[in-house]
């Protein structure tokens, strides 16, 4: 088992390395002088800054030397400098990361828990109106653009009903501390986390439902019935556990998508995370920041993947005991 996890870790490191190399080549593939690209396209950077950049990244040297310098920097978490914000990119991201982790984490847990519950409920009522309602809702949310749901949520729950704050991380200038602050952040979190979670909840609902129905047809469920076990026990102990395996796999695969959704959600709700940072960088053509966020988000996704792998290993003895 440790072997399995170690293998995954090594793989993750390789993927991160590959992304850095991809980033490096993108800088060079972009039209124009790499220094100007890194400084941002708006031409706001002065000559001295560009010259510094050229020296720092050895832009007059052969490509492989440049790559080496770039990788060395990145390994030391030097993701370049944002001329626009006058700050190292790593610092910018570091400041914004907690908000994103809070949002994506909340949305991920919410979607998985509610999605599985809804999926189980639908499968238990297969063919009835309850199943139809859940399946139709899941299909609707699966087909709705995330940013649009976010906008409509702001209109309805913030503008019209005034129930929840429609933007920001906390009430600015309220000066809350401790529990009151946590509560305030929590209130701000509800709309973004729910809208981000809805799309994924739809996916997990559909998957859980299909998986439950499929496992119900397997032989060992018949064995369980032949033992005289009650329906509820069979569903919980035999069907659900086996049906969750593909859902966990899917959740791991979806981790990357959750971050993509975070860019949109944070943009709409002015949530001060790295997704919002990326949106700002797009508008300002702050290229270093875009690449930095891309790299960090990939690292985040790999972390999510690792977590789902560990969960999988614990649920499925076949991996735990054979690898």
């Amino acid at each position, binding site marked *: 088992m440790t*072997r*399995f996890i*170690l*293998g995954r870790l*090594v*793989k993750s490191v390789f993927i991160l390395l590959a992304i850095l190399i991809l980033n490096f080549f993108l800088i060079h593939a972009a039209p124009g002088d790499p220094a100007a690209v890194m400084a941002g396209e708006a031409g706001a950077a002065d000559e001295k800054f560009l010259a510094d950049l050229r020296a720092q990244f050895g832009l007059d040297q052969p490509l492989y030397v440049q790559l080496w310098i770039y990788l060395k920097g990145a390994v030391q978490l030097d993701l370049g400098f944002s001329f626009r914000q006058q700050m190292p990119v790593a610092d910018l991201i570091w400041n914004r990361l907690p908000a994103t982790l809070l949002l994506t984490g909340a949305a991920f847990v919410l979607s998985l828990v509610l999605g599985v519950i809804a999926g189980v409920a639908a499968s238990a009522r297969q063919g009835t109106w309850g199943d139809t309602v859940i399946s139709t809702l899941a299909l609707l949310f699966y087909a709705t653009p995330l940013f649009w749901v976010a906008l409509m949520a702001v209109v309805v729950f913030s503008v019209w009903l005034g129930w929840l704050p429609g933007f920001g991380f906390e009430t600015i200038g309220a000066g809350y501390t401790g529990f009151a602050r946590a509560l305030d952040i929590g209130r701000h979190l509800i709309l973004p986390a729910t809208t981000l979670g809805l799309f994924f909840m739809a996916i997990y609902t559909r998957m859980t439902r299909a998986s439950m129905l499929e496992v119900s047809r*397997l*032989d*060992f469920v*018949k*064995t*369980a*019935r*032949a*033992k*005289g*076990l*009650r329906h509820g*026990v069979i569903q919980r*102990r*035999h069907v659900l*556990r*086996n049906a969750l395996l593909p859902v966990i796999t899917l959740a791991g695969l979806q981790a990357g998508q959750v971050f993509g959704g975070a860019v949109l959600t944070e943009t709409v709700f002015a949530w001060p995370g790295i997704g919002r940072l990326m949106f700002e960088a797009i508008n300002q053509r702050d290229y270093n920041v875009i690449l930095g966020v891309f790299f960090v988000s990939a690292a985040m996704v790999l972390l999510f993947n690792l977590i789902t792998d560990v969960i999988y290993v614990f*649920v*499925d*003895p*076949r991996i735990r*005991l*054979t*690898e």
Partner: protein
Amino acid sequence: MSLLSIRDLTIALPEGADRDHAARDISFDLAPGEILCIVGESGSGKSMSANAVMGLLPEGVTPVSGRIDFDGRDILGLSEKEMLALRGSRISMIFQEPLSALNPLMRIGAQIEEVFEAHGALSGAERHEQALRLLTEVGIPDPQVTIRAYPFQLSGGQRQRVMIAMALALEPDILIADEPTTALDVTTQAQILELIENLRRKRNMAVIFITHDFGVVADIADRVIVMQTGEIVETGSADEVLLHPQHPYTNALIEAIPRLTGDHSGGRGDTGEPVLSVEGLCKTFSTGSGKFFGKRRVVDAVQDASFHLYKGETIGIVGESGSGKSTLGRCIVRLLAPSKGRVLLEGEDIAHMPGAELRERRRRIQMIFQDPFSSLNPRSRVSRILTEGPIAYGATPGDARKRAGELLELVGLDASAMSRFPHEFSGGQRQRIGIARALALDPAIVIADEAVSALDVSIQAQVLDLLADLKARLNLSMLFITHDLRVAARICDRIIVMQKGRIIETGPADKVLRDPDTDYTRSLLDAIPGQDYERALAGAG
């Protein structure tokens, strides 16, 4: 007094099935401590009748009339709650596929203890103790370890023993066994049959044993029911039904059983040059890439296999699952690349021959496959299936079509089959198409890999007859790969026995089947069900 009594039971199939009823007007009684065998071919309704007793019919399949009396009550009239109390405690069941019948994520012990839990019997510690005792009773070698194991860590036979342990947990009055040995090797089958027989005697438990194999019936049954397309055609004591069958269908089934005893002329081999010589053939599989901490596992599937096949000769390659017999066959036709050794096809070594050259040679050696459902492309018409090969080797489409028509006739199908798709044929007909395809390239050698294993016994007999006839008419040489010694006995001149990747015995069929040199072959022969019966039949006939 009968324990279970079924009267006029009719079970309806859902709309759109190929017939209205899974079973019609079924009536029989089961006495305490007796083993009742229900025999029939696939689709005869034998499983459905037994499942109805457990109240475990598939969705859409419902009993529409009749009654099943157990313990003075009609089971069909019981509520789900009352059924729950019966299932697993008074009536238990075991199934055909022991791997898929166990929950892959639960330990063996927990799955057995669950039976006690379901019926509120015993305390936690006692349940564990009982589970251990049951595992010991069904002959699991190391119960202390097995109780903590997961299903995937056990062999097929062990899994079936675990299923039996589970079924016996609450000392049921009736055990329903639905083809419990069909997925097992013949030696394992013999052990499981013996176990069921012993347990029955010890516990005076009644058994309903569902099977398609008359050999098994002869070994284990007290009474027999023969079913055909949902109806009981014959009932009686084992002796009556087996030795003096009344119904023509029963008669036909018994006729069709492949026999060990019989005529093995076998003197054809060893004349002239061999058409195929295998020398020192090895095949090693390695799983896992070995990179990134993955463990590399190496399996020697075939080790140092050597033999000659002569013109017009049929060699049977027999062995249990995992013996390497199919791998050997696939290495010879180069569907798998041999790791070592030579395969001389009409004097040329094709073992390591490169693509284009191999292609030219390979038309001389063709194959017939096991599964009539996966061996034909579901999206190709029969005409394409039969003409594709010859066209690939340069025949004109017109000639290929003409030849395809002749081939269909040769294997006993109508020429109108040409324009149809595989799903429009029965299993036996598909296997005939597969044979025609193998013959389309005029091969010198045909390798039949478990070619009749998936077929019902009556169809099996027809296909075996066809193969024997074709072989004689076309002067073919054949390698006949099978797990079933009885089938091998019927068609082979010589027999090669394989065990764990090695050829351990080679000889004329007569010799190998009557007086084998190795203990392993002896044990395979001993494990064949129904031998006493066969002798009795031979004596009577």
